[in-house]
């Protein structure tokens, strides 16, 4: 068994190097994109009544399928555990990962994966009961804080309170469902987790209005899709699929007006929609790759609002995820 394990370890390390080069060919041949997603993250990837996955992360998968295969529904969602996700990507079980994965240096450099961009700028935040009257996280000295075991949230929390010279009493739970029950039952004054998750947890309270999420964000959690190392063409496709959505929002192209926009005079829009030049060819795609994304999935704003923003139950404000022109940091290089 020892030998087998050694072979396994060797394969694990060699995996990224051996990664076959033509992911695009695989996807075209299967006529389906296999996308690793979270099995249960409200707003990002959740199983709906209609037997499909809905959420921001899954829409990123759909965008890539639309660009490559011309059909946003040709995605096979593979629910992955947080431990399993990188191996599944390396072993070729999925072609891309869009699974609320924080982009960090160690993951980018040592896990054999490449992050292609940021689909959601998340960060750790605090939620308190509204009747506590707390306005800012700086007032939380001595508070009992509910959080989840084994997450970066737990570590960030310790850092934050130490840096601000405050004390706190940690109340640790295993899963988000449990920590929200702990919060509701009053076992802690504060619940701390990634902001996107806090909004989902808030919905599970019997009276969601009774709790407020404080404005402070105490950590950087840029979430984004990732691909296997060693296939630059595929890396480009996934990267530019997301950029196309952000650019579409910037130039006001949405799924509703994209057909009218085909006749637009604006050279930027003509370039995005593949009317004046063919920017898909260099990636091995059709000229209308971005048109298909926008037509079938929508631009970034539509994706955001539908899943986590104003049109969803979470009503998360755009915040950092607004365009750079609207005070956020969402900025995509131009398509030209």
């Amino acid at each position, binding site marked *: 068994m020892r030998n087998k394990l050694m072979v*396994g370890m060797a394969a694990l390390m060699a995996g990224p190097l051996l990664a076959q080069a033509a992911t695009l060919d695989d996807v075209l041949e299967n006529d389906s994109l296999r996308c690793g997603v979270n099995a249960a993250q409200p707003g990002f990837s959740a*199983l709906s*009544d209609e037997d499909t996955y809905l959420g921001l992360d899954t829409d990123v998968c759909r965008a890539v399928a639309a660009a490559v295969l011309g059909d946003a529904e040709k995605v096979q969602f593979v629910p992955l555990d947080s431990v399993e996700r990188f191996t599944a990507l390396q072993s070729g079980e999925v072609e891309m990962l869009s699974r609320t994965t924080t982009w960090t240096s160690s993951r980018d450099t040592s896990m054999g994966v490449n992050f292609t961009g940021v689909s959601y700028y998340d960060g750790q935040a605090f939620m308190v009961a509204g009747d506590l009257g707390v306005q800012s996280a700086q007032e939380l000295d001595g508070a009992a804080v509910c959080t989840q075991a084994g997450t970066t949230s737990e570590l960030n929390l310790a850092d934050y309170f130490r840096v601000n010279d405050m004390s706190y009493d940690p109340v640790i739970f295993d899963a988000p469902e449990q920590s929200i029950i702990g919060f509701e039952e009053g076992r802690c004054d504060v619940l701390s987790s990634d902001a996107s998750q806090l909004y989902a947890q808030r919905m599970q309270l019997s009276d969601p209005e009774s709790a407020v999420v404080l404005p402070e964000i105490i950590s950087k959690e840029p979430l984004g899709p990732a691909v296997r190392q060693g296939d630059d063409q595929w890396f480009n496709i996934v990267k530019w699929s997301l950029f196309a959505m952000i650019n579409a929002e910037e130039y006001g192209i949405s799924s509703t007006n994209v057909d009218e926009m085909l006749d637009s005079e604006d050279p930027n829009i003509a370039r995005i929609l593949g009317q004046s030049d063919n920017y898909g060819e260099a990636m091995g795609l059709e000229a209308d790759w971005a048109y298909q994304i926008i037509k079938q999935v929508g631009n970034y704003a539509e994706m955001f609002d539908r899943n986590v923003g104003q049109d969803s139950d979470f009503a998360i404000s755009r915040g950092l995820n607004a365009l750079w022109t609207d005070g956020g940091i969402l900025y995509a290089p131009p398509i030209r």
Partner: protein
Amino acid sequence: MIHNQDMIPQQPAPRSTIGPLAWMRANLFSGPINSVFTLLGLYVLYILLVPTIQWAFINADWIGTSRDDCSGEGACWVFVNARFTQFIYGLYPQEELWRGNIVFAGFAILIAWLAIPRLPYKRWVAIFALTAFPVIAYVLLHGGYFDLPRVPTHRWGGLMLTLILAVVGMVGALPIGIVLALGRRSNMPIVKSFCVVFIEFWRGVPLITVLFMASVMLPLFLPSELSVDRLIRALIGITLFQSAYMAEVIRGGLQAIPKGQEEAAAALGMTYWKRTALIVMPQALKMMIPGIVNTFISLFKDTTLVMIIGLFDLLGIVQAALSDSRWLGFSLEGYVFAAFMFWIFCFSMSRYSQYLERKLHTGHKR
């Protein structure tokens, strides 16, 4: 001397010794301490049961299609209702559900046939259930033959997947377990050491590790063109793991048979296989029933671990459904439903094993 010439007519037993009142006095209020405990017990039952019944039945919402139909005063079974198909079949396509239904029905009929003593042709039904039925079930569920559309295994889920995992694990593990147990008792050194190593290896690792190896490490060993289906990998892992436990249960049963039985059979000129199949195994197997069923029940519940390798068994699909933003906050209902389904299956298995024990009771029990 006064004689009573006639028999005293039969009298009914005194009121104080029969009927529910007497039973209560004898069993519940036989002394001050027992009376206090009875009252205390009743009170605890009252404070536990009343809110539970109110929550689960009286204040519960049963009909509707969305969370708006939930009053929030009691359980909202609307959630389970709306998701019922998903909980039973996973993501199996709606228009193909009849295939799953046929397999469910066939399975239920076969089990009932084998379990009800009066029905004839047991042997043939059993052979059919173990050979033809799995093939038919696979062809029906997976499709791709006879114009049936293909339904890839990643769309299978819910109770259907739980049953597939458990049944394949049980049916596969029993024969392998018997062979391993016999091998471990064998005098042939290579066979014996192979069986010992196999059993000790698989018993030495947790099931979760086996599943993890099967789903995470195995794909790294294999060339990427050769991809083995996730479900198949899980099934192989579960079967091998379970067969090691089964082997030890069976070995325990074999050890309880006096050596004289086998020696007597040998003296009659029986070969090893005849001795084992006709003398030792029939006696051993019936003694092992509690152990075997115990292993089956624990396997049935262990199938929930496939959740970590991205297969949605009954519990997995319930958990996945809980994260749908349209249905946030119904975790209690979901878990109660899953627990109830598991309880039905485990309890029936346990009752059937007790029935079998009584039926096969031939004097070995003390």
